């Protein structure tokens, strides 16, 4: 296995108190407050386009991304705010992106669905369901090809498993993995629904992770609402991926408390009751209760975390609100690196 010059992340013992756990709780609370703020700003008309929030699913990305290294890379779909935050992207710049401002991570050109922060190993934010799976497999190949021990983590929803590119990506990753050339962790964020279609109604086989095994990719299910379980699994399999260069798949069973997108108001596909039931398994509450037991975290501690998160989010909203919109000529930059439009069509 190639030599590493990178920082390493220690695995944590789920049974014992460790400072990382409180850190993860803080992050999860922050993500929750951040997402609530984005929904609020969408209602106010400050955020345009599609807005998909991560409320209810925080445990999944938190448990896994905290187990990755700085130079590992992450790909995600459009439900991508938490992933960017966890990779260390400045929340100000994320919020500014959602507001369509020049100070946004993608200069205001991408919006909610296309967050991007290469400096922090976050390779986006994609809007076509399943479209990024092949990209991630290629990225993993590149990492090994270049002789590094970096790995790639690719997130996608249960619904994405039904599109052709999923199967093509899995088979290629499995094939390359046979040669130790595809260090990738596929994470199925199984929140029970693809928009308004439940897993039972969209997948012939509802035990999703078994579908991955058909491509010679090992995998397991994990309780996505229990960040201890997620982090535990992540610690274990990430090391193994790094070691072997073979892909692995985690199916994190989770639930989204909000609508599919901010415009999914009526939610005719599920009852309020169903949502209420799942709120009992709020990943933040589960973690908080656990930390009360093992670390003696108090309500006051949590209140403080909440307050801090609220302040930080308010600052991000303020930053976004006060940032200027992109200059008009930004329209024409970043289209291609070298071969611009034909002169006759050019602005200047």
């Amino acid at each position: 296995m190639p030599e590493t010059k990178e920082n390493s992340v220690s695995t944590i013992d789920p049974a014992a108190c460790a400072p990382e756990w409180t850190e993860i709780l803080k992050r999860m609370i922050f993500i929750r407050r951040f997402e609530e703020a984005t929904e609020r700003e969408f209602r106010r008309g400050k955020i345009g386009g599609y807005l998909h929030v991560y409320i209810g699913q925080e445990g999944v990305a938190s448990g896994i991304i905290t187990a990755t290294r700085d130079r590992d890379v992450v790909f995600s779909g459009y439900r991508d705010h938490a992933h960017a935050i966890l990779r260390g992207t400045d929340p100000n710049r994320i919020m500014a992106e959602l507001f369509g401002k020049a100070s946004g991570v993608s200069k205001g050109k991408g919006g909610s669905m296309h967050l991007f922060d290469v400096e922090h190993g976050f390779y986006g934010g994609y809007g076509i369901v399943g479209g990024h799976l092949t990209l991630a497999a290629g990225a993993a190949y590149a990492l090994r090809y270049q002789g590094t021990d970096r790995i790639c983590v690719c997130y996608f929803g249960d619904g994405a498993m039904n599109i052709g590119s999923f199967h093509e990506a899995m088979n290629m990753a499995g094939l390359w993995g046979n040669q130790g050339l595809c260090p990738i962790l596929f994470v199925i964020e199984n929140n029970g629904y693809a928009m308004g279609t439940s897993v039972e109604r969209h997948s012939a086989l509802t035990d999703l992770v078994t579908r991955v095994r058909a491509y010679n990719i090992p995998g397991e299910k994990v309780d996505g609402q229990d960040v201890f379980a997620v982090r535990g699994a992540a610690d274990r399999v990430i090391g193994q991926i790094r070691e072997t260069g073979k892909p692995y798949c985690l199916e994190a069973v989770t639930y989204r408390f909000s609508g599919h997108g901010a415009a999914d108001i009526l939610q005719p596909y599920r009852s309020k009751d169903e949502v209420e039931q799942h709120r009992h398994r709020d990943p933040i509450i589960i973690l908080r209760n656990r930390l009360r037991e093992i670390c003696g975290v108090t309500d006051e501690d949590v209140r403080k975390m909440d307050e801090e998160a609220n302040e930080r989010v308010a600052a991000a909203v303020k930053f976004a609100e006060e940032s200027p919109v992109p200059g008009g000529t930004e329209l024409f930059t970043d289209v291609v690196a070298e071969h611009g439009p034909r002169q006759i069509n050019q602005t200047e």
Partner: protein
Amino acid sequence: MAEVIMPKVGDAMTEGKVVRWYKKAGEAVKKGEPLLEIETDKVNLDVEAEQDGTLAAVTVEAGQTVPVGNVLASVLAPGEKAPPAAKAAAAPKKPEVSEPEKGQQRRRTDKKDSIKHTTGEYQEAIEQQGLRKDRTAAPSANVVALPEGGRRRSSPLARRMARDLGVPLEAVQGSGPQGRVIAKDVQNFRGAAEAQPAAAAPRASRVSAAPLMSTLPALEAKLVPLSAMRRTIAKRLAESTGPIPHFYLTADYDVTNLLSFREQVNAIEGIKTSVNDYIVRAVALALHHHPYVNASWGDDGISLHGEVHIGIAVSTPEGLITPVVRNADQKSIREIGDEVRALAEKARNRKLLPNEYQGSTFTISNLGAWGIEEFTAIINPPNAAILAIGAVESRPVVIERQVAVRERMKITMSCDHRVVDGAAGAEFLKTLRQYLEQPLRLIV
């Protein structure tokens, strides 16, 4: 306090209507309880209270449609006092929000009907952080430079019309971009040419009443390509004497007959014509015989103008200006006179429009009224020549070995040597003599 706003509940929603309030101001509300019903173009929905408290400050009534994000009311927490109304809160903000407010106003012109007008918002985007160049402007026209001395630009329709009407396209002044000849130009050109036969009818009928007009064959306009020799001569002449190589020819005319003809006309017609009117007409007719005098020098050729537009130098308090009598060869002496006087009047009142002082093909400067016997004038580019008209003087002359007193007038012609050679200029002055000394020619 929690604000109740018009929430955006659809990706394309920009405004919503308050259908009805379930609660009145002052009523207690519970978190999650519906406060009001709203309507979007897709659905009707209830907006719920976000906290326990009392509904207050309901500012938007049922039936009203407001933009997304607008505050509709607020919910006060138990024990909380209503803030001194939204107005007070908005007041100090006023000066700093003027910019967005301006945008809001502009946007109000964007009717939110099904066509989704965003013109106001678009203008705002341009003003706010616009493009360096206005994208509504024409794309740059010249991607590939046309070869020098290349063909004149013209639209396909203009070419077809020119072909059908037998109009020489090279003679038509193009009014489109880069001088492109467009249909209108051909029409105008043709109109001028046609004015002859077509207008001849009314004029003919007027002949009896005002027999001051003769009809002429159409002039041919064309571009004469420069021969190598012509080019060289032009260049050398220009080098020696400045951009326009001038030379001067002076002729002395006997205008006795002209003056008596004028007197008769004035008496018969009961009008006032001036000598200058006769000169303009005479020059216009003479130009018909000498297209090279009614011409312009250009790098790609000498343009022979298909029309005769005579500029008349008029002095005004501000200086010299030359109003133009268009198609002077098609106009009667009386028409010329009327027009010159109207134009001169306008010139002195500084009311001339550009099209009234631009586009001459030949110019006349007359200092006779100042008693100037003889002078030279500077060519008015792009004309190829100018006439300097001196005063009419009674002078003794020898006619058939007898001394007689005749009315004489000296005319000096300044010529652009690149276009007009000495002999050509002399020929022109000779033709002019026929018209000035035998004035009946002016009307036959």
